[in-house]
């Protein structure tokens, strides 16, 4: 993916004479071309989100999208009478996407010009190009990860969750309990590595060393007897959060060294990082080993330092650290673990004792 043409992460559709044939208000009945329907479904499978910016009556247009079986593929429909550039801008903001990763498709040159004028970074396409989008490089991510295929569902669940959180009157912790959060920790499978690599790239705030492990480096460690690569995923009653964390551990008879611990920004407010550290502490206590953790200060990861310190890690010296050689500028924090109670806010299902046996709930 070059600097000039990043992959499109969200395509914003016009409806009349673009997504469907005809004008809803005038024709009363509109149909979707099979070729366009195929584009919608295939983009969805590739993990490209699809939104709508249309001048129509919202309820009427949405009802038609539902009848056509396309409503479920849409996030953030903006159906109303405001300028489309405003709709596109709000969609980008809500998704927290750069405008450079948004695209807009409309049959009317004036609408495309209006969007292009106010949002020059957004790529605009005429409606007649709709059926050919799948062949364009900017709509063809080089790798389609496990999470890409369910990305739209994850965002939809996220919007529902945010809405509930805004409405919730009680304490945050009670809200978390009401979510029915479940965290699964397991040995990374081959097909998850791409997603894990992506996480280490994207989570600069929650990466304890700022080091990025490449796809190849992580893959080679999957079969290394001295290392464990663990993937963390979460779900709740709104749906899956997908893969939200990665842990890379080097094991010696006396200690486990956390070489990489990164969690997605999406789950920071659920206390995912703190729960992971507690689980590791408990697992190490049961295994009778000490814990060590690489930490290198960056200008963005103080949150990780606080997380380690609050979990009890210190800079104290210990003989168990002798066999580890962290890179220049990286400290090895240390903890003598004791058994921990499971968290009150989520259910944790993890390998027993560590990636070896079957997954069991942490009790």
């Amino acid at each position, binding site marked *: 993916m070059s600097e000039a043409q990043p992959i499109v992460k969200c395509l914003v559709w016009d409806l009349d004479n673009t997504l469907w044939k005809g004008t809803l208000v005038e024709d009363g009945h509109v149909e979707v071309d099979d070729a366009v329907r195929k584009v919608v479904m295939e983009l969805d499978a590739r993990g490209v989100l699809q939104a709508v910016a249309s001048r129509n009556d919202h309820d009427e247009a949405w009802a038609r999208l539902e009848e056509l079986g396309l409503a479920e593929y849409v996030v953030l429909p903006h159906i109303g009478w405001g300028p489309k550039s405003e709709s596109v801008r709000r969609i980008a903001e809500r998704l927290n996407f750069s405008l450079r990763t948004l695209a807009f498709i409309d049959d009317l040159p004036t609408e495309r010009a209006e969007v292009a004028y106010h949002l020059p970074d957004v790529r605009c396409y005429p409606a007649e190009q709709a059926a050919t989008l799948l062949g364009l490089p900017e709509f063809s991510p080089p790798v389609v990860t496990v999470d890409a295929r369910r990305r739209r569902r994850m965002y939809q669940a996220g919007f529902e969750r945010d809405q509930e959180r805004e409405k919730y009157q009680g*304490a*945050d*912790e009670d809200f978390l309990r009401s979510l029915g959060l479940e965290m699964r920790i397991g040995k990374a499978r081959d097909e998850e590595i791409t997603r894990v690599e992506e996480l280490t790239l994207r989570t600069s705030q929650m990466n304890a060393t700022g080091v990025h492990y490449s796809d190849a480096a992580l893959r080679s460690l999957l079969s290394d007897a001295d290392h464990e690569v663990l993937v963390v995923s979460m779900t709740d009653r709104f749906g899956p959060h997908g893969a939200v964390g990665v842990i890379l551990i080097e094991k010696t008879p006396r200690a486990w060294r956390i070489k990489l611990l990164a969690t997605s920004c999406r789950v920071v407010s659920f*206390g*995912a990082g*703190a729960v992971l550290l507690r689980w590791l502490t408990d697992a190490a206590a049961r295994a009778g080993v000490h814990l060590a953790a690489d930490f290198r200060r960056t200008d963005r990861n103080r*949150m990780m330092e606080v997380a380690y310190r*609050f979990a009890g890690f*210190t800079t104290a010296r210990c003989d168990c650290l002798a066999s580890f050689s962290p890179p220049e500028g990286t400290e090895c924090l240390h903890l003598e673990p004791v058994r921990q109670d499971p968290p009150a*806010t989520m259910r944790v299902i993890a390998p027993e004792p560590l990636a070896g046996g079957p997954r069991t709930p942490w009790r």
Partner: protein
Amino acid sequence: MTDSTTELPVAAIEQRIGAFLAAKTKLTWEPEEDLFTSGAVSSLFAMELVVFVESTFQVAVEGPDLAMDNFRTVRAMSSLVTRLRSGGDGA
């Protein structure tokens, strides 16, 4: 003790911290009440606490002072603030 801002009474410190916690958690906290009993302090909340204490009372919390026990109760935080503001041994 040259800086006049060090003359901040414990009650005032605890009142500021209490107000922050009430806004954040929608609960009121007694000075000795443990904030972390549930075991689910999010890293975000821990970070917010640290940043709040540092920016409100103009102190830097570093190294061994960044311990959960120093933030476990309103009282623990006010003791930390008082110690750091008086230039006491933070090591």
